[in-house]
């Protein structure tokens, strides 16, 4: 009997410190790693991490089915409004940054592109590499699927909210984009900096009409010379602050930020 009571108290205690994180697939590996080490340090804490996309996480936060929404984009005005209607004030913590690299096949001679050229390529106005100083080769543009936060961020930041061309190749995962670009000579696409490897070549990007071209790297992203950088954010409502605070503090601590750079993101 005593033992039963003891275990039930233990279970209750662990439920008290249990929390869920839901949202962006980009942030998913980071949150998982953070949660694992956090649970090793704090034996009775329980952190469950699931993906699904930034929008999925934020709507779960509005429904109240998650404690933290992990997101690779800023909260939308509508989402904020819905949370306020429920009487909750949303808190925003930037935990890391992610740079997006525009990549091409290593055999491609083009290595500098301006934002305007990128917009032209992804909206379908520029269709041949010779128009941007390369050889006479058809451009094959790859994109992520619409459910990805990366897709939306790239559309907002680089295409200035214009639509991708209808004939764009869309891939279900970043790994598939790397694979396809590596084997297609005329290919171009965008991936998180962490996915950059020898199979693809990163384009130097210019946001000032071709005056300076900057290579994507952790260093250029950190000193803000590389333009295509987005914050990775945790959202929570002020009511659950006490529950989520220890975990967020851990993520922002030196140990937590070390995991950020180990995974390939940029520390705060």
């Amino acid at each position, binding site marked *: 009997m005593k033992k039963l009571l003891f275990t039930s108290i233990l279970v209750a205690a662990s439920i008290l410190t249990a929390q869920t994180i839901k949202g962006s697939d980009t942030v998913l590996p980071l949150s998982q790693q953070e949660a694992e080490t956090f649970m090793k340090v704090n034996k009775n804490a329980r952190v469950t991490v699931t993906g699904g996309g930034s929008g999925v996480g934020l709507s779960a936060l509005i429904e109240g089915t998650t404690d933290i929404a992990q997101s690779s984009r800023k909260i939308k005005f509508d989402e904020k409004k819905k949370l306020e209607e429920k009487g909750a004030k949303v808190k925003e913590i930037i935990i890391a940054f992610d740079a997006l690299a525009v990549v091409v096949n290593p055999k491609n001679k083009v290595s500098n592109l301006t934002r305007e050229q990128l917009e032209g390529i992804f909206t379908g106005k520029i269709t041949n590499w010779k128009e941007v100083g390369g050889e006479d080769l058809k451009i094959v543009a790859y994109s992520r699927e619409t459910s990805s936060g990366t*897709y939306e961020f790239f559309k907002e930041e680089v295409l200035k909210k214009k639509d991708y061309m209808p004939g764009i190749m869309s891939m*279900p995962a970043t790994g598939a984009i790397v694979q396809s670009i590596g084997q297609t000579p005329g290919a171009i696409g965008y991936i998180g900096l962490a996915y950059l490897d020898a199979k693809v070549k990163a384009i130097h990007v210019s946001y000032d009409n071709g005056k300076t071209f900057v290579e994507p790297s952790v260093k250029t992203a950190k000193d803000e010379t590389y333009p295509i950088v987005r914050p990775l954010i945790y959202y929570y409502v002020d009511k659950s602050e006490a529950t989520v605070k220890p975990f967020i503090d851990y993520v922002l601590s030196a140990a937590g930020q070390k995991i950020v750079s180990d995974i390939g993101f940029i520390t705060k």
Partner: protein
Amino acid sequence: MRWWIEKIVEKIFAASGMITTVVILLIVIFLFKEGFGLFNSPVVEKGYALCVNAVNPVEHIGSTTIKKIYNSGIENWSEIGGFNEKIVPFRFDDIFGHYKEEEFGENYEKLPEKLGEVIAQTPGILAFIPEEYLPKGVEGVKILDGNTVRPEDFFLGQEWIPTSTPAPQFGVLPLILGTLWVSLIAILIATPLGMGVAIYLSELAQSRVRDILKPTVELLAGIPSVVYGFFGLVVLVPMVQKTFSLSVGETAFTGSVILAIMALPTIITVAEDAMRSTPRAMREASLALGATHWQTIYKVVIPYAISGISAAVVLGIGRAIGETMVALMVTGNAAIIPKTLFTPVRTIPATIAAELGEAPHGGVHYQALFVLGCVLFLITLVISISAELISKRQHNKGL
């Protein structure tokens, strides 16, 4: 004692049959119910409206026109029957660039007023703003009537851009044609191959060979489709690209080859069963009349089993049409109407799988995906019914 156990078991079986039927019907009803709302939805995002300056004579703007305006495809109002003034597309978020956050008041109560100000000052503006912040009654602002999504735009539209704001484009023609195209090519590849294997297995192979070959073929059916997809992406895509020297390897053809391999076990198994069910008396009669083994196969066995073979092919088509993962991984998912074998295509199942996760529940995009589901359901329903009809014919024939 025993009779009531039997009764109970009978009742349980009856109940499980009933429950299954009801569940399937409920799923179908749910599918159509969720999708049906699409054609009552406005062409711009729900809860939003379009406003223009009061001096603007334009009253209605169609969905494709809105899309072109926001993508700088149309730049002057005179192009769509208005006055000669440059169009200034304006999104709700742009307001935060015009004024400081505190100017909107504590709970954004001054937001409509500020929006009204901007619209009244810009004669060529086309503003896309939430209904709750509409500057109603403000001098110089005209709110446009919203249209609803039209069935002809949906079924005959050629552009599928569900994320386009303010007017998402739901033209499913490229998706339907893409699905049918990939499946058609797949079945053209799989049928002769499958028939060959089926004839070999049922008529020519020795029983020892058959004992090895048949389980191997059936094993093909057990491989998860994501494994096929991965194989396709890593091995077949570069191969297709090099062999035909294409600019891109993710094409309808690549998808068809993998889908053909996946449809093979179904075709082989069903066709072989049909051929083996040819009565021994018929074969022996044929041989007794002096026909060779070969002549017996194509004059007696195949005609006898033809309805079974057709059913096998139709079932194979059904398998190919509904396949999701392979299509998602190797066909390139580009929503364009396929003109050749080697263009990338986007299929209906791949679209649903890739997009449903982020589509807001109950929104236009969500409903559009459900209508796509209905379309796919109807296609496979037609296929299943024809398979049923074809295989029924067999029972009326024979000796």
